[in-house]
């Protein structure tokens, strides 16, 4: 009876998350489709940005992969072994992956991991996937054509661990928005209206992965920026580098 109930909850969460991801994927697929059509409409006058098509396809694939990884990690949560992972390495990898994507959204992507941080206890692939999914969601937040957003992948020390996340000019973002968004994930078209005009699947995929690693997303501030971040526990192993 207990197992049935547990499975029911897991299936319910995964199907809501799947709905959220499916809704989110409509955007990059539509961008790719209409970009290609634009070329056919106006081949003589408009050069279609093939790099943009590639970026959109790549990010869509990463989101699908991260969603599947989140499910796998949650299913194996009881046996999941966390290992010491270089946080600065994970942030660096995520920033590298997101950089091209950010450019097409007129967003400057910065890595702010000043200070020397040792390894944290995490699932190495999961940590990078969570940071990329989160960045994917926050980079595509609607903004004025005339403005240029700065999104920061940052880490800082807090009393409860190392806080790693993605930050930007989302000053009015509050914990209640995140709490409400979690409840609406997969149930509403715009569960996180503060951040996204769509399903904000990247946020929920990241949250799912972090939860498998025994932490979760919170609204956090880093320097003068506000964003979403998770607290990770430092590894007790000596940092050799």
């Amino acid at each position, binding site marked *: 009876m207990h197992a049935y109930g547990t499975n029911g909850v897991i299936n319910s969460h995964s199907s809501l998350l799947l709905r959220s991801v499916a*809704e989110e994927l*409509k*955007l990059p*697929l*539509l*961008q790719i489709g*209409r*970009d290609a*059509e*634009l070329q056919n*409409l*106006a081949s003589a*006058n*408009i050069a279609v940005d093939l790099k*943009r098509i590639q970026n*959109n396809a790549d990010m869509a694939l990463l989101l699908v992969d991260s969603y599947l990884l989140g499910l796998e990690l949650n299913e194996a949560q009881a046996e999941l072994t966390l290992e010491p992972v270089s946080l600065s390495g994970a942030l660096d990898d995520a920033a590298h992956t997101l950089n091209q994507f950010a450019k*097409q*959204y*007129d967003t400057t992507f910065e890595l702010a991991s000043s200070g020397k941080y040792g390894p944290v206890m995490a699932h190495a692939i999961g940590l990078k996937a969570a940071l990329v999914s989160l960045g994917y969601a926050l980079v*595509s*937040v*609607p*903004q*004025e*054509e005339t403005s240029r957003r700065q999104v920061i992948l940052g880490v800082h020390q807090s009393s409860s661990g190392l806080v790693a996340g993605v930050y930007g000019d989302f000053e009015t973002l509050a914990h209640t928005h995140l709490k409400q968004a979690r409840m609406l994930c997969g149930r509403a*078209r*715009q569960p996180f*209206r*503060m*951040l*996204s*005009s*769509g399903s904000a699947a990247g946020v929920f995929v990241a949250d799912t992965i972090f939860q498998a690693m025994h932490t979760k997303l919170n609204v956090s501030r880093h320097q003068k920026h506000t964003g979403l971040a998770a607290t990770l526990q430092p590894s007790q192993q000596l940092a050799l580098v």
Partner: protein
Amino acid sequence: MAQILLLEPDIVLSRIYAKALEQVGHKVSSVFDAQAAINVIDKFAPDLVVLELQLPIHNGVEFLYEFRSYAEWQKTPVIVQSFVPPSEFKLTPSLWRGLGIAIYLYKPRASLQQLLNSVQDQLVTITA
């Protein structure tokens, strides 16, 4: 050719739609949320509005109520082009007409050509 206000929250899609519309000679003003649209309307004076309903902060229906509350914008045609399927858009036909929605395109199934044709149809209707 016409002045078109494009209310589309995604920058990438907005640029694609704007290019397609400009390619056939229209002048496009792109905005990403309802408040920005209200701010530019008087200055830009659109002949037609292309609107996504899923917008940040205020949604497209809220924009429409505000837009239609000004006498000078009550007859401007609006083409809804949205990720929201029409079947989920629970307005009665009379309310739909009351909001002045001329055409409803479901974005995942609407080609650029359909958008251009819809715009052209509406502009012909205005001038007729």
